[in-house]
Every structure is written in C-alpha cells, then in structure tokens.
C-alpha cells in the first residue's frame, strides 16, 4: 500500500505527515507535487495542512484547480482513498469531493490548541478501529474551521453515518463549550457517501510521536492501516 502526500505551494504540514507515515508508521510514502499529472501509483492520497497558494482568496479555493487535483478527483471518483487534514479538508470541500464548507472561526481568530474529539461512527476506515467512546486529544490550528452545511445535507450525513468526529470535552460530552470554532453540531470531520474520502480539521499527525507526549492521533493512522493491511 503506497501513501502519496501532496505538496501544494504553501503546504506546511506535508513534511510532518510524511514523517509520521514513513518514520513512525513505517509506510511507503511518495511525495506528490502540485504540478504533477499522475499519482505515481499511490493508493491512499493525503492532502496535508497549510496555506495552499497563500489562501488569500478563500482557503483551498485555488488548490482545487491545480493539475494534481484533477488526478486526485479522478482517483476519488473511482473509489480510491483520499484524506484531507485541515487545509486538505478545506480543499476537498472546495473541490466538491466532500459536502459542506469551512467558514471563519466564530471568534474570528486563528486558534491553535489541543482539543478533544471522539469518533461519531465506526463506519469509516479512519474511525473503524477506534474504541467506542474513546476521547482523543488532538491539536487544531486553523482560522477557517467552522464546519457548515445546509439542513438537508446534515440530515443525509447523519443518515449515512458520514460524520467522522465530533468535538467534545475531556469526558467525551459533546457540548457547546467544547466546540472550539462554532462548527455545526460540533462536527470536526466528515466523509463522502462512498466512505473513501475523509476530511478533518484536527491534526492527528501532530499527536503521533512519543517524544511529544501525546500519541492519541496514532489511533487514527492505526485504524487506517488495520483495514488496508488485512
């Protein structure tokens, strides 16, 4: 199984993602460049965090038009795995691979801190092996992370078990206080109806190295690998 991590100009979590996948999780990883026109035989594509093309217009709005995204969209439409973290999530929403949009945080400021999330269903690859009710401490770092979509879509997301994670408190209660950015229904991550495209604002790759005293994020990578390696 080969992971491909895309670097857009302005990506800044690409090295972190590669480090976790390759050095900590021991996986084969290929670097993909935004001008590339093929996926170099990768099966699982990761769009990392950062500020693609500067994000001066709207986060992720320009990246979706890059040459590599044409291939990523093709890959996803054929059922291939794609995961977007933070800016990657924003790009997936902008390109229509995931429903909804990410708006400015409700306090209008960039927020970087540890938050708590828990898996909303065990239906998707990234949450399948996370123990039920397990609360994960994972950092966020974004200015535009307030998940929003219309009522009809939210209903569909619930019916299809497309919500991946909710923000919650340390005890696992999904409360208003534990919602860091004003996301609709505390949504921290979603997947598409085909369950092969995933997006989340929190950064699991920032919580996967023992030396940083928090490896909760590793559970998400382990969940992905348990399935794939079977």
């Amino acid at each position, binding site marked *: 199984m080969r992971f491909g991590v895309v670097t857009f*100009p*302005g990506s800044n979590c690409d090295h972190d993602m590669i480090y976790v996948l390759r050095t900590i999780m021991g996986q084969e990883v290929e670097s993909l460049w935004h001008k590339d026109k093929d996926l170099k035989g990768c099966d699982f594509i990761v769009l990392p965090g950062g500020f693609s093309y*500067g*994000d*001066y217009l709207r986060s992720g709005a320009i990246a979706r038009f890059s040459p590599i995204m044409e291939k990523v969209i093709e890959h996803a439409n054929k059922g291939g795995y794609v995961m977007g973290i933070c800016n990657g999530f924003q790009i997936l929403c902008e390109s229509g691979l995931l429903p909804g949009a990410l708006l400015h945080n409700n306090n209008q*400021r960039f927020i*970087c801190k*540890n938050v708590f999330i828990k898996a909303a269903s065990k239906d998707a690859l990234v949450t399948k092996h996370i123990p039920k009710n397990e609360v994960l401490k994972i950092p966020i770092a974004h200015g535009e992370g307030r998940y929003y979509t219309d009522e009809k879509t939210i209903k569909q997301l619930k019916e299809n078990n497309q919500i991946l994670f909710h923000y919650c408190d340390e005890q696992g209660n999904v409360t208003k206080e534990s919602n860091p950015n004003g996301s609709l229904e505390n949504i921290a991550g979603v997947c598409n109806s085909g369950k092969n495209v995933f997006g989340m604002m929190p950064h699991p790759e920032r919580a996967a*190295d023992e*030396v940083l005293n928090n490896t909760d994020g590793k559970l998400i990578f382990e969940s992905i690998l348990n399935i794939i390696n079977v």
Partner: protein
Amino acid sequence: MSATLEQVKVTVETAKELGLLPEEFEKIKEILGRTPNFTELSIYSVMWSEHCSYKNSIVWLKKLPKDGPHMLAKAGEENAGLVDIGDGLACAFKIESHNHPSALEPYQGAATGVGGINRDIFTMGARPIAQLNSLRFGNLKSDRTKWLIKGVVKGIGDYGNAFGVPTVGGEVFFDDCYNTNPLVNAMSAGIVKVGETVSAISYGEGNPVFIVGSATGKDGIHGAAFASKDITEDSANDLPAVQVGDPFQEKLLLEATLEVIKTGAVVGMQDMGAAGIACSTSEMSAKGKHGMIIHLDKVPARQEGMKPYEFLLSESQERMLIVVKKGREEEVKKVFEKWDLNCSQIGEVTKSDRLKFYMHGQLVADVPAASLVLGGGAPVYHREYTEPAYFAETKKFNINQVKEPIDLKEVAKFLLAHPNIASKKWVYEQYDSMVGTVNMSTNFPSDAALINIKGTNKAIALTIDCNSRYIHADPETGCAIAVAEAARNIVCSGGLPSAITNCLNFGNPYNPEVYWQFVGAIKGMGKACTKFKTPVTGGNVSFYNQSSSVGKAGGNVSNAVFPTPTIGMLGILPNKKSATTLAFKNAGDKIYLIGERVEDINCSEYLYSYHGVKLSPAPYFDLDKEYDMQQILIKVIEKGLIQSAHDVSEGGVFIALAEAAMPNKLGFDILTDSEIRQDAFLFGESQGRVIVSVSKKHDDAFVDMMVKSKIPFIVLGEVTKKGKFVIDDETYMTVEEATNIYDNALEKLITE
C-alpha cells in the same frame, strides 16, 4: 567616470533631510573626492543609519564576549550566529526588532518583522524550526494599546502560521512607558548541517548577481532611516516607510533557497531587509573584497517609473541577492522556476572595490563598497553618558516604607490577574505552536521551549527574557538578571545554556542619560554572559524608542521606554530524556525552594503595581550564587532526582507555585519562612531561586545531594490532590479558582 553621473545638486541641507549629520556629509565628500549625487547620498544615509551601521553602539558591543567552544560563526560575521550542537548539526539563531513600523501599522509591522528574522536564518542555509517573540505594550486601558496588541498578534500569527514554523515561546509585558512606543522583537532558530551553510559574501570576477523572490516596489523606502528617529506626531507621514509582507512568497522563497544551496552553484547570498539592494550589495561586496556592476532597470519592479534611489532603498519583502558561479546560472534559474519565483540577473561581480549602479545604461551611483559598511567607512561614535537623577532615587526605597497588607489572599488574586503575570493564552493560541511536530512543550509545559531535533538524541531549549523594570532600576544588575533568568529557564527545562542573541531596545542615544542605561546594560550582559559561558552571537540595536524630543541632542530620559535589552538564549539537551517540566506531577511529592532566601520586594510586580511604588532598586541578585545554584540544579536533573522545576520570577514564590500546580489541577500545602515577612516571602522577586518537586522515592538522594552542595534550600511543603492552595494552614483558593483568574484575565482586559 563621474562625469556621466546624474548631476542633481545636493547640499548639506539635503544630507540633513536624509538624517545625516553635517560632519557625515563632509566625510562622504572626502571618501568620494567630490560631492555625492542624490542617489549616492541616499545610499550613505541608510547605510550609515544606526539600524545598518551600529555607529552609536558598536564601541560597546565589541566589549561583549563573543567566544565559546561551540561558536561556528561569531557576532557580526554572518546574518545570524551559528552554534555547533553536535551530531554534525548547527543552530543558527537571532533576534531582531520591528518596533517603529509596528507603532504605526501594527499588523504589517509585526508581520514583516517575522519575515525578516526568518530570512536571516534561511539565507545561511538553515531551515527555521522555531520562532519566539517578545512584545511590550503600554497601558491596556487605552484603546490604542488594544488596537496595537490585536494588530501585532494577528500580524505575527498570520505571517508565522502561513510560513509554517511554530511559534514556541515568548513574553508579553505591559507598562505605561510603552504607551507611544510598543516593542516588537522577533526571534527565529534554524538547523543546518555543519559545512552546508552559505555566507553573505561576493567574490569571483564575472560571477553573475541575481535578485530572486518578490518584485521590488516603493514600500519601505527609508525604513532603516525611519527606524533611527524618535516617534513624533508626524510619524504617520512616514507610513510608506512601513513594508508589506507576503508569507506565501516567503514560504516559497524558503524552499527554493534551501534547494538552490544544494546545487552547489551559489557563491554567496544575503536576504534583503533594511536598506534593500544598497545594503546587500555593499555588505556582500565589502566582505568578499570585490565590486559589482548592477543594472537597476533589470530588477523586476512592481510599478513603473521607479527612480534609481527607490530601487536601491526599497525594503520590499521576500527578496534575496544571490551571487552565482559563472556558467551555472541555468541550475539556479531552474529551481526558482519550479517554485514560480522571479530570478533575474541584474549584474556581475567586478575586480574593483566599487559598486557601480546603472539605470538604462547610465551610471547613477559609484561608491566604494567598504566605505558604506560597519568595520569599513561607516562612522563610529563614542557617545557621552551621565547617570540620570532617578537612579539615586531608586536607592532610597526601604521595605519598611510599605506596610504588609492584612489580606494576602487578595494580593495573590491581584497578581494572578495582572496582565504581566496572567496566562498569555489569548496571545499564543493565535500562533501555530505545533506545526513541524517538534514542540515538546505543548503537552509538557517547561520554563524554556523544548524543541526536538528529529533523528538525534538531542533537543534544544529556547527562551526569551527581559524584565525591563529591573533594567530601568539598575541597568547593570538588571541586564545581568535578564541573562541569568534566561539561563535559569534553560536549566529548569533540563538544558545547558549555550549562547545568546540580543535585541537592544533603548531611547535616543544622543541623550546621555539614555546612553548611560545602554552602557550599564552592556556591562551587566557582558559579566553575566562570561559567567554562564554563553557568548553573544549577534542581534540588533533599536534606538530612538521614545516619544518626541527636541532635536537629536534633546529629549528626556523619561520620554524613553524602559531600557529593554531582550535576551534570547539557546540551550542544548544532549539527551532529550533530561527534559524537565515545570508542572507538579503527583500528590505527595515534596516541594523544595532552592536558592537564597532574602527579605526583598524590590522592583517586584507586587511593589510596583499593588503598592504603586514606581522606584526601587533591582531585586536581590548575586551572579556567583545564581550560577552555583544552577549548577546543582543541572546535576539533580541529570540524576533524575526531581519531578519538576520552575523558576521564581514575576510574582514571586506564590505565582511559581500556582503555575506549577495548575497544569495538572493539583494543589499545594506549604509553610513560609518565619524569618521573612510573609508578603516578601510569597511575592518578592529576589533572584536565583527555583521551585522543585521531588517524589518520595528520590527524596533522600535529593536531600543528600543538596546538603553536600552547600546550596541553600528548604522544604516548603507538598503537592496535594484536592487542588487547594494552602499557605501557613490557610486556604488561599482552589486550583479551579486560580486557573479561572489566570487563564481569562488578559482576554478580559483586551476585549472589554
């Protein structure tokens, strides 16, 4: 040759308007053997400004210790200092001010400060891995201060976050003396393989000279000269002197720069900061003892009709000057093409020692490179200094003039909520502190920021410290304290102090009382750096941080900001296992206070803000005893005998205990020293003290080692489970109450 130069008449009046002194104008005429034209005069005016030439400070800066066993590039040799950290790696680190631009346009001023300091690091070939900053503002009750802090913090965040280097530490301090002049000091540290660095040098006749990165506009013209003036009501007219930043371009420039160095085609490189093309061409040429021919019309421009002096002085951001080995131009161009950045040849290296600038084939300036730079022809001044009257006043303070308050709980709450002490969460949560996945302090709070060096057993520790109130009270002692506190933070975190960078923020150097503060601070810094074996690797001088004064010689020391020599220190953890947290870990662990106990409330936040006593001497400080205390702390950490270590600083023992208790929601039960006034024991800021917690298992070994060391220490009490802060059998508050006050106080003040 000069016959083809443009012949706009300049006089001593023109020189004065550009900020030069009449005697400096004479000196320029002497160097050139003729009257300079306007373009040339402009070049001299920026290159000889304090910002670029250090003309009023270099005499004293040279007295600072520069040598250390691990120094690879000493102060003044490169864009930043370079320290060998072992394993074939080196750390480049530096601090720089962006005070004047931030006073007028806080968002862009602070943002471009971040951009500038990072360019200083990666222009040497080092990849920045951590940023810090030191911010000082006036009274938070004023709307202007609120506007400034919001803008500065957003500026630093937006630039640093997009650039993708974590902001791992810093300080924020408030005092009325910063009402007009806020201080914005930014620091960056990067890692490079030893032997793979690039110098800011130019040589080799015929080698092409390239400008890369953003196009050049009219922004920031005379920025360096602007930074060398007092802030007045007319300063808003200098707005074009503030630059505009683009972190996206900077990120691309970083990646492209590091990639182009790997080609081996680069002779030398320098980033363009203050004084733009004029500065980079002259400093690189002077260093390599060669000249250059530069065609200014070949510089990619943002707008039409730019004049030669505008090209030369523009401080447009995100640009670099690169001298390339002749014949290898294509390799260089290819890299910048990949990153969609400008890369234009604008000239070549010549054998002579002169810089010749052309515009559409016409010679517009012809100056000897060395005459422009520090250590070459730039002027060097010995300024006079006199002790200000207030200094004698500080000595008159005696603790008996202050009555001990009846309710110390109220004092404790007052201090927890004081913006100089309360959590700076509102600020640092706007910075990405975790990108790069190297910040070890996120989940393991420590006095200095601990940065993992991936692929090695090592970590580095970084801190930034300066209590400017102490320095105002006594520049020499106060600045020695700043160095000692930085070292203490490194040691408490498990590191060994290695080297410092400094950012010297002062008032107008032509004022002898301001200059007395400067001289005192340098003396104190020199002594402390010698003691701690932490050489000064470089930094930056920012004078004129004061509100309007009458002419250059005028003004009053009371119009100036507190003397603020910010110290950025690098420490090394040879083994990251020695990383030590400031947080209490387990109930039942014993709490000890290491260091001398003195009845002293001098200069404390308690005395200054609670009692309103504005003048008192610097807190008690003994350099030798401080050093010895730190040495024993290094040993007990090495032996793994302590659970936590936190230095006693602003707010005294009480605040240190509270800060240690809050992260894990624990409490403490302690007894004060009956020999010392309770308020002094709890809130005094005498130096050289650290609070440690020790588990039962290691208690005997710890006590044994401490007794043998003869360093004073006492047991204060123990860590408790229920989260109560108990002092002399009295409950002061619960950890929840303390956290609520401490975490929210600053946001309330800023947003109310």
